[in-house]
């Protein structure tokens, strides 16, 4: 795993299934990792170029929505090579009631958003002691 070379992947533009985005500019679907531990679900999303000011993490009607806006400054000079496009990011996830929705926290560092979704008490596996008698 450690010596594996990174494969490149082109950014995928957001194509909404119903309705259309009314936001200005180009939106991409960020790459995410979601993993689960005993107590929580953790979501990591790559949002390069997004500052804390441009980030919105919303929870509404069981949908967790991530919007990361980048400021596209008009760059001077001539473009010699353009392998990637810049733009904002959008993605949403359905959050079930297995998550304690009031305790969700989020942090952003080096272009990576980390959302921690603690499991609701009822979803935490409990070990049931068995007594012999």
């Amino acid at each position, binding site marked *: *795993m450690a010596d*594996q070379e990174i494969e490149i992947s*082109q950014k995928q533009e957001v194509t909404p299934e119903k309705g259309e985005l009314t936001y200005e500019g180009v939106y991409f679907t960020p790459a995410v990792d979601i993993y689960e*531990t005993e107590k929580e679900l*953790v979501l990591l999303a790559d949002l*390069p170029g997004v500052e804390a000011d441009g980030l919105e993490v919303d929870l509404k009607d069981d949908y967790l929505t991530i919007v990361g806006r980048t400021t596209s400054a008009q760059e001077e*000079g001539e473009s010699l*090579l353009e392998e990637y496009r810049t733009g904002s990011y959008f993605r949403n996830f359905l959050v079930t009631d297995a998550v304690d929705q009031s305790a969700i926290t989020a942090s952003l560092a080096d*272009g990576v958003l980390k959302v921690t979704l603690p499991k609701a008490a009822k979803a935490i596996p409990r070990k049931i002691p068995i007594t012999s008698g």
Partner: protein
Amino acid sequence: MLWPRMRRDPWWMQEVDRLRREMDRLVEGVARRPFLGFETRLFPLLNVRDKSDSYVVSAEIPGMKTDDLEIKIEGETLTMKGERKPLEAAVGASYHRRERATGIFQRSLTLPGKVDPEKVNATYKDGVLIVTLVKEKAAVPRQITVKAE
């Protein structure tokens, strides 16, 4: 008299086609080498801009530690090397989705002109690496004003 519509290409045309296919095949092998202007399949993807006095190379590599990044300039060749590690070792965690790529990468880029190796500046902010390379004096276009006499 009308020529038949469908004619076989003359033998020499077939030979030219064969040679061209052969050439394409050879060039494809070379094109995988990172070289400005060729499409490459290497991480990270780069954007390069030519400002009048410098070249600006940028790459999106979110979640890096600057210690894991190595940038080198040799002549006109800029090399970026590093390892994107998983953010944390989540022991006993089970993954539902794993889209964020981790691993090692190395990419070299030949710049179109000479740069001053002492004036290479690299910054890493919000997951974006920006390398600014100041052009050597001789490579900076000089504006010459024409004096009227």
